[in-house]
């Protein structure tokens, strides 16, 4: 790399960039007048709502728009190119020149790690391809170099990975491979488009750490695209805020995040759940959203009545058989839930947290009877469910309702939302006439803050947040006593997420609902829950009141989870230790059962698993 010290001119200088799609009158301008400078060895974060044009801007820099049917309608992108030996306007380059820049001087990590790698080629060949192209390396040299970079992103067993195919890797590993691939030609600019959105907090922390580390080593300039303010605050030197294809605000990270000027930036920051912001309080608290319908004070913080639980779970165990071998015998089992026990009381929110794959959904599904347990007991208002005959058991599906993670996926795209909403009530005979149904639908819609006349619309005519409300409305249709919300807000934009969380809390206050709130987002948990249960490898390793768990985490895993959450504290780089390796899996050979943990009380209502060693 020939970095001729910090020259005065910025490395990349974007001026008034506009991008349109389509032509003629129907042309859509998706990027409108974006300008920024990217200096050597600096990180520019582009933040903004979904669809504001962040990804398109980066594709424009790489000259890839035309493959999507887009066009640069105006502006220039000046870039100091070494391969071409001059300062060029990226928009004016021939395809051939562009190819020399792409991947070589400007590299990009795309938004979705799961689909960015070609499934039919090995990691080694996909990385080697770039090296051979831009650096003219021989096969074996390219392989050597690829391995070095895989080591650099701290992938274990890099040598073996070279011959692996993408599907054999977890999401986190794939994202690290992508980073290695983008960096292997030591580009001058690395564009990272939401590199961690799809990932778990702990893996996210790991990846952010790697990017920062490598940037420091290679003195690369980074354009970091994200909508997560916490992440931005950890990563960026400068920030550009976009909304609806236009730049809203730009400046140094401290300045923008601490003293936002534009109302949109302020709104965005308000919605960010900040971990630790609830320290000292015992009750859940609504998000403070400017201009929302109800004031936080309307939700009285009622103490939970702990005399009679709604739901009691005792030693619930769920395992999945993995078959293999010639006779397809069960060779392994996934111990998704091992002897899980907890209670939920009326009007209480129990948050079930843990890493991906720790068994949270399995517990939720078992309670909803979507999954059969291996053993264990479950009581609703004292009634033992599993001992009932199958038909009688189903009736209890009215008592509990499940809100699925993907609001779009869980609404039938071919039914009007009205039909979808009323279906559970119809099944359980809660409404009998058309008129009654209509009223009920209207009632439900209003309850979740949607206009009653939207009943005739189809799911695709709603926004993500609205759809999530619809799912909640449907769950309310049978007047359940318990709602299981499985990652019900993870897919949402921060501002929408805040609205939905508020809605849930408000409903709880009004109707005394209980929630089992499944998530891995600790910041949201802090807001919403009364109590928290932490799952690790199918077992509950820590359970206690929210305050106990957050303010006095005992189990190392809980600590790790908490420390992984990015903190919105501009300018301050996190000091958490880098995490290594992959999460251990719950899959075990038959006969090799995990040792059950024993929970030990730390204080009143706060239990922690005893350390094995």
């Amino acid at each position: 790399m020939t970095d001729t010290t910090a020259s005065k001119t910025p490395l990349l200088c974007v001026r008034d960039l506009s991008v349109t799609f389509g032509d003629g009158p129907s042309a859509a301008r998706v990027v409108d007048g974006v300008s920024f400078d990217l200096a050597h060895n600096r990180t520019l974060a582009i933040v903004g709502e979904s669809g504001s044009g962040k990804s398109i801007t980066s594709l424009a820099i790489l000259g890839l728009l035309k493959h999507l049917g887009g066009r640069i309608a105006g502006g220039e992108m000046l870039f100091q190119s070494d391969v071409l030996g001059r300062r060029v306007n990226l928009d004016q380059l021939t395809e051939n020149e562009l190819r020399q820049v792409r991947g070589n001087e400007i590299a990009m990590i795309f938004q979705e790690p799961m689909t960015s790698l070609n499934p039919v080629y090995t990691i080694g060949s996909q990385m080697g391809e770039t090296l051979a192209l831009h650096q003219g390396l021989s096969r074996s040299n390219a392989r050597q170099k690829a391995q070095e970079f895989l080591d650099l992103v701290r992938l274990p067993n890099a040598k073996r990975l070279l011959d692996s195919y993408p599907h054999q890797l977890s999401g986190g590993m794939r994202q690290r491979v992508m980073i290695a691939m983008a960096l292997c030609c030591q580009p001058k600019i690395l564009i990272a488009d939401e590199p961690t959105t799809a990932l778990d907090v702990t893996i996210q922390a790991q990846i952010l750490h790697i990017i920062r580390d490598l940037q420091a080593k290679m003195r690369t300039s980074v354009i970091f695209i994200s909508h997560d303010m916490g992440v931005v605050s950890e990563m960026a030197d400068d920030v550009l805020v976009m909304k609806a294809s236009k730049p809203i605000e730009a400046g140094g990270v401290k300045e923008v995040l601490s003293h936002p000027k534009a109302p949109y930036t302020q709104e965005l920051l308000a919605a960010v759940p900040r971990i630790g912001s609830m320290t000292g309080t015992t009750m859940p608290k609504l998000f403070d959203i400017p201009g929302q319908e109800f004031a936080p004070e309307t939700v009285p913080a009622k103490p939970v009545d702990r005399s009679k639980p709604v739901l009691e779970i005792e030693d619930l165990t769920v395992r999945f058989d993995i078959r293999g071998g010639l006779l397809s015998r069960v060779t392994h089992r996934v111990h998704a839930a091992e002897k899980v026990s907890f209670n939920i009381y009326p009007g209480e929110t129990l948050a079930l947290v843990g890493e991906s794959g720790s068994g949270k959904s399995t517990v939720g599904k078992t309670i909803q009877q979507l999954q059969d347990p291996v053993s264990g007991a479950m009581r609703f208002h004292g009634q033992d469910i599993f001992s009932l005959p199958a038909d009688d058991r189903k009736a209890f599906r009215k008592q509990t309702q499940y809100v699925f993670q993907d609001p779009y996926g869980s609404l039938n795209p071919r039914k009007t939302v009205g039909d979808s909403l009323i279906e559970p009530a119809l099944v359980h005979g809660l409404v009998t006439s058309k008129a009654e149904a209509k009223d009920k639908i209207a009632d439900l819609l209003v309850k979740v803050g949607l206009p009653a006349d939207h009943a005739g619309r189809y799911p695709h005519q709603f926004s993500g947040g609205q759809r999530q409300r619809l799912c909640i409305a449907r769950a309310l249709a049978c007047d359940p006593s318990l709602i299981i919300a499985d990652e019900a807000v993870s897919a949402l934009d921060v501002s929408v997420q805040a609205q939905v969380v508020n809605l849930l809390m408000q409903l709880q206050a009004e109707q005394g609902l209980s929630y089992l709130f499944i998530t891995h987002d600790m910041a949201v948990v802090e807001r919403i829950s009364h109590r928290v249960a932490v799952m690790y490898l199918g077992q509950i390793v820590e359970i206690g009141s929210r305050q106990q768990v957050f303010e006095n985490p005992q189990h190392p895993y809980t600590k790790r989870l908490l420390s992984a959450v990015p903190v919105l504290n501009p300018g301050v780089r996190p000091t958490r230790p880098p995490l290594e390796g992959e999460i251990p899996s719950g899959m075990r050979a038959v006969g090799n059962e995990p040792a059950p943990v024993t929970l030990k009380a730390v204080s009143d209502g706060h239990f922690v698993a005893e350390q094995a060693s």
Partner: protein
Amino acid sequence: MTEATQNPTASRFQRFRKSRFAKFEFVAGVTLTCVLTLLVVFSGVLFPGGGSEVNLLARLSEPFQSWENPLGTDPLGRDILARIVHGGRISLTVGLLSALGSVVLGTVIGLYAGYYRGILDSFVMRFADVQLALPFILLAITVIAIVGPGIDRIIILMIVSQWVQYARLVRGSVLSLREREFVQAAVSYGLPNWKIIFSHILPNAMGPLIILLTLNVANNILLESSLTFLGLGADPQTPSWGGMLSEGRSYIQTAWWITVFPGIAIMLTVLGLNLLGDWLRDELDPLSKTR
């Protein structure tokens, strides 16, 4: 293949530019199919003679020479146009009935097999394998040797050997739909199975089903003509496109029009149906609906 592997931006773009061709397909497909269907439906009114009036004096008249026989006549002096219009009845009946029969049978079985798995499911899959290994034409020839020729038998035969395709397709959709969250949601609030199958799964499996249906209607029209060509179809007095082709081939050098026009009729019909099917495919694409 699944939605997940697609780049959302790109598919958005495809939607955005969903070309004018879609419209062309629709217009051309609908026009062709409608015109042909109308002709066939009103064949009795248009050509009351049924196209079977023999007139040996006018045999083998060339096309485009007279208003009386605009497309010429066959060796028995019968009007080609009238016969084509009447012959369409057989073709369309076979095409539609066989496809409808197999789609209903196949869908019900496919839904059941996919939803409940079990014995029926393995049976359907094995049956599909066997059926795949037997070329339909040979099967048809053998069976017709047993039961004798006839349009009704051809239709039944087509149903018997094609329902599996639908069953397989539906089963496949069901297997993936079963895991979709909205179905899981329906299970979670206790909807009975049959309701889940018919009100949640079936409507969402319709897309590919309809495409297969239009394809099969088209294909079965071709198959019928092949079978009639082999002498296994309708009786000689009933005009049918396949029959006309088969009768005309010996005259191919003297009177090309006997073969060429029914061939074109088949082509246009099949083309119309295929165009419609193509259009439907785009239309039923869930991505294009989210617009």
